[in-house]
């Protein structure tokens, strides 16, 4: 059986209110891990998600200036940059990890970003298989 593409979404608890039916619009297997703040997402959480089989990891934070903790999503962005360096050293395309700033409590933006990310991962997978 063909293995479904898995996206691990690590996000701030306040970034989305998506319900099961919203997420059904996104193809692939979605795994959502919610954190009290995106600034609480560690590099180890990102790497672990890859080790547990994610094709891509999407870090979702509140738009700049709207974080409950002021600079949580900026902190998350820096960790994502550092994690990308590690992924490259390991031989994983850095594009498989991305940060999205999502308006707080917007399910639509959240789902749309996940759809776009899914398409990107699909292309990367096809490129990898073509090599």
């Amino acid at each position, binding site marked *: 059986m063909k293995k479904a593409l898995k996206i691990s979404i690590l996000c701030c608890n306040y970034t989305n209110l998506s319900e099961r039916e919203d997420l059904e619009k996104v193809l692939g297997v979605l795994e959502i891990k919610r954190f009290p703040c995106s600034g609480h997402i560690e590099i180890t959480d990102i*790497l672990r998600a890859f*080790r547990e089989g994610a094709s891509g990891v999407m870090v979702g934070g509140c738009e700049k200036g709207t974080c409950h903790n002021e600079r949580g999503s900026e902190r998350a962005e820096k960790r994502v940059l550092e994690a990308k360096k590690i992924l490259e*050293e*390991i031989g994983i395309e850095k594009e498989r990890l991305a940060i999205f700033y999502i308006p707080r409590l917007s399910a639509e933006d959240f789902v749309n970003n996940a759809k776009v990310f899914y398409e990107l991962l699909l292309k990367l997978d096809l490129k990898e298989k073509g090599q």
Partner: protein
Amino acid sequence: MIIAERRTIPEILENIEPYKKVLLLGCRGCVAVCSAGGDREVAILAEALRLARSRQGKEIEIIETTFIRQCDPEYLEPLKELGKKVEAVVSLACGVGVNLIADLYPELRVYPGVDTSFYGANIALGEWVEKCRGCGDCIIDKTAGLCPIARCAKNLLNGPCGGSKGGKCEVRKDMSCIWHEIVERLKSRGEMEKLLEIWKPKDWRPAGGEGLRIRVREDLEI
């Protein structure tokens, strides 16, 4: 403090390639303060190595721990037991820690997880700059506390070279010419006569010219 930088993951992977059980050993001394080898860096590197090895289809068991220091024998004592549980140790301490482990536990295969870089100061969050080279014969009493050995690209002892321009070093344009700063500071203090003094030739022997450097304080010895 001693500043270090994590080695690349391929370099570390190459060293531990034959092993299935490894101890990743951090240090809460200098390398923790410069964010190269403390608890947090141990956790990140462990996860990175697990991910890399799982992609190679060669799972690895990693024990993660961090000692208070790795440059004192007493703090290394837990290695007596821990060392029996693993095939190799990757130490995230500076080279001092790795060497001391190699000296005290010759049966352990120990590999460096960081490159030891320099003695530096934490001038801003996430930024460390060299301030001292540990040459063993300080001259900063004569240079307003600013060290030309560590901070002049040419280690000059007699004022700026001809390449100093607008207070900047010719070797690195983003770097201040330390001799320019020394002169400006002494001038502002009215102490320029300090630079008229003819210094004795610098004694480079304490910089390592006589081999291993050893310091003994007999009053502290048991």
